[in-house]
């Protein structure tokens, strides 16, 4: 039997705890739970943003999965970018970080040179790449041509558009390079010395000393990279627009994902449906697909990553 005084004390404690938690609770409620519940709610509604929403059941879901011609190409592209672009960014970022930590002279220059592109605004950087990689007039193809090498269509060719976007992402590798450099410089030197004394070569030192020490950073880079790539919007949109040369006007429709839907990503579809076609319900379905995909990828990576971390401990 709990006394009335004890009950009152517990209630006071509960109120106090909630009061201390309230900034977090309010933040999560307003910026996460409310939008999430709204998104689920609107995914079952016909809503154009102007007239009151009406219940449509699974119609939006059926439309997106079976009738919306851009959904599956966008999903395939997003998965391609998650697998290829994120992997290459992590490998390239780690590689550059390793190289720069080994450089004896001019390390500051190289650090700056590799970090600066990351600071370039995405639109400007993409436009610059579209200019450099223009298949007709771009300097890259001019050089390739003068060397007798094949000249790809880059952003104008569906086979090359995603590799071209990957090149753009690798050019702006500065963020990962800095993180990897910091973690590499943090690896205890004694461990390298001990490994060397045991006869370990460069690869073995990397595999059994460097990698275990920086594995949490690798996992962080992969998880944040996946989430960022799920939200990949500006660069493919600008690249497609610049390369197609079509900005869209009356009777002149801008083609999403030029060329041949190869640069379409899911966030572009959220905008396309929600803000251009007034189909908030369809846009919410795609937003939820993105949310679920990000959750699944993150959970998978965290699960695999925890094993990776554990085996390297």
């Amino acid at each position, binding site marked *: 039997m709990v006394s009335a005084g004890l009950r009152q004390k517990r209630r006071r404690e509960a109120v106090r705890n909630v009061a201390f938690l309230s900034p977090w609770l309010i933040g999560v409620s307003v910026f996460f739970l409310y939008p999430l519940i709204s998104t689920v709610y609107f995914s079952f509604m016909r809503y154009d943003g102007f007239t009151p929403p009406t219940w449509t059941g699974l119609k939006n879901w059926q439309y997106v999965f079976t009738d919306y011609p851009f959904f599956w190409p966008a999903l395939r592209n997003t998965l391609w970018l998650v697998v290829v672009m994120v992997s290459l960014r992590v490998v390239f970022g780690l590689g550059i970080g390793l190289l720069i930590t080994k450089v004896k002279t001019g390390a500051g220059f190289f650090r700056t040179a590799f970090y600066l592109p990351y600071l370039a605004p995405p639109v400007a950087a993409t436009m610059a790449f579209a200019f450099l990689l223009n298949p007709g007039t771009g300097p890259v193809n001019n050089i390739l041509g003068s060397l007798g090498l094949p000249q790809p269509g880059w952003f*104008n060719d569906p086979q090359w558009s995603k590799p071209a976007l990957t090149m753009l992402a690798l050019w702006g590798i500065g963020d990962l390079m800095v993180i990897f450099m910091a973690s590499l410089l943090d690896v205890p030197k004694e461990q390298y010395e001990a490994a060397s004394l045991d006869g370990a070569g460069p690869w073995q030192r990397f595999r059994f000393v460097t990698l275990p020490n920086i594995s949490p950073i690798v996992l962080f880079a992969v998880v944040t990279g996946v989430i960022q790539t799920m939200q990949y919007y500006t660069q493919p949109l600008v690249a497609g627009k610049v390369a197609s040369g079509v900005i869209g006007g009356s009777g002149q429709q801008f083609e999403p994902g030029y060329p041949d839907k190869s640069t379409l990503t899911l966030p572009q579809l959220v905008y396309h449906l929600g803000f251009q076609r007034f189909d908030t319900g369809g846009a919410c379905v795609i937003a939820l697909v993105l949310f679920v995909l990000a959750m699944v990828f993150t959970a998978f990576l965290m699960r695999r990553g925890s094993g990776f971390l554990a085996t390297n401990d």
Partner: protein
Amino acid sequence: MPRFTRALLATSAVALLATACTGTSNAPQASDDATKDVTITFWHGWSAPGEVAAINANIKAFEAKHPNIHVKVVGNINDDKIKQALRAGGANAPDVVSSFTTDNVGTFCQSNVFADLKPFLDKSGVDLDKTFPKALQDYTQFEGKRCTLPLLNDAYGLYYNKDAFKAAGITTPPKTLSEFDADAKLLTKVKGDSYSQLGFMPNFHGYESTTTHFAAQWNPAYFTADGKSNLVADPAFAKMLTWQKNLVTELGGFAKLEKYRATFGDEWGAKNPFHTGQVAMAIDGEWRLGMAKDAGVKFDIGVAPFPVPDDQADSYGKGYLSGTIIGIASTSQKQNAAWELVKYMTTDTDAVVSFANAIHNVPSTLDALKSPKLDADLNFRTFLEIAQHPKSSTTPASPNGGAYQLTLQDFGFAYESGKVTDLAGGLAKTDQQIDKDLAQVK
């Protein structure tokens, strides 16, 4: 209270909150007094200095006529911004809105985001048939609901390089598509695996060389009477795509033309391929005259109506029409004052003519088209004639904007590149896709 019940109640409360927080357009009655001192906000899309100066002069003239109505002008606004602003409403939302594209008229009218203009037109005694050409009346309403009016007009025709024509021994612009194809080949000069001059860029990414602009020469019906897509049933589309694909092949093939297209400069800049002489002929709107002049083009420019199919030679002179539209936000609390501005900009002959002359657009009223104050340039007069041709046509308004045009264009890309070879089957699939997209917004 059981935990489940509490959770259910909380979820319901949040869902209700979500519903309550959604913007809805409750159109206010136009009860404001337009004779009192008032400031209205006008959004438009013009951004070039000359165009902005022209619209500002137009507004200044309006304010001189209506000293009690002050206009706050906001430029460089596109349709995406318009939609968001009208969804959000509020004190900073526009009262009067203009858009460069007619594609969203269906959405604007159907969703009541723009006010119904009929009561205003009736009040002011504006007779639409005596004021605007038929095609312009059509593209500013949707299913009988008039929520916008035309604010200037765009007509598409054939631009040609007179010097290139002379060098190739061509004396007159082509009138039929078979003449056009022959001229395009004659004007094409191959250089290595590319061109030093292309007669015409037929590829659907070739700026204004779009499916809808070409299709207008066949006067197609995009939809059946009950609103279903009509691409496979109307032979116009198959004929247009067959003609275009044939021209692509005759001029060197899709891949070669695409590679050449990649060398083109910006459509709206000085390096437009027609300005630079990379193409000798182009389909384009009347604005190109002013742009070519500003770009300092060295050769003589000729303008003619775009050629028509050989079996429709008697309809030569027609072309694709489009234009800027203007409407009143249904959320505006100053609709009567806003109407005064809309009425002035769309129906006052002097206002329409001076604005059309200033930005090199075709005027949108019947009186303005006949005005002696209109630009006397012969090339420009060609566009005036295209705009008034009884067979000139436009793309119809649709509840999901230009989605059907995008779907047709998408098929055009697949067909011109050879990715799809079954024309009838492809058009049937395109019909199905358009119908599915329409069903989604109904």
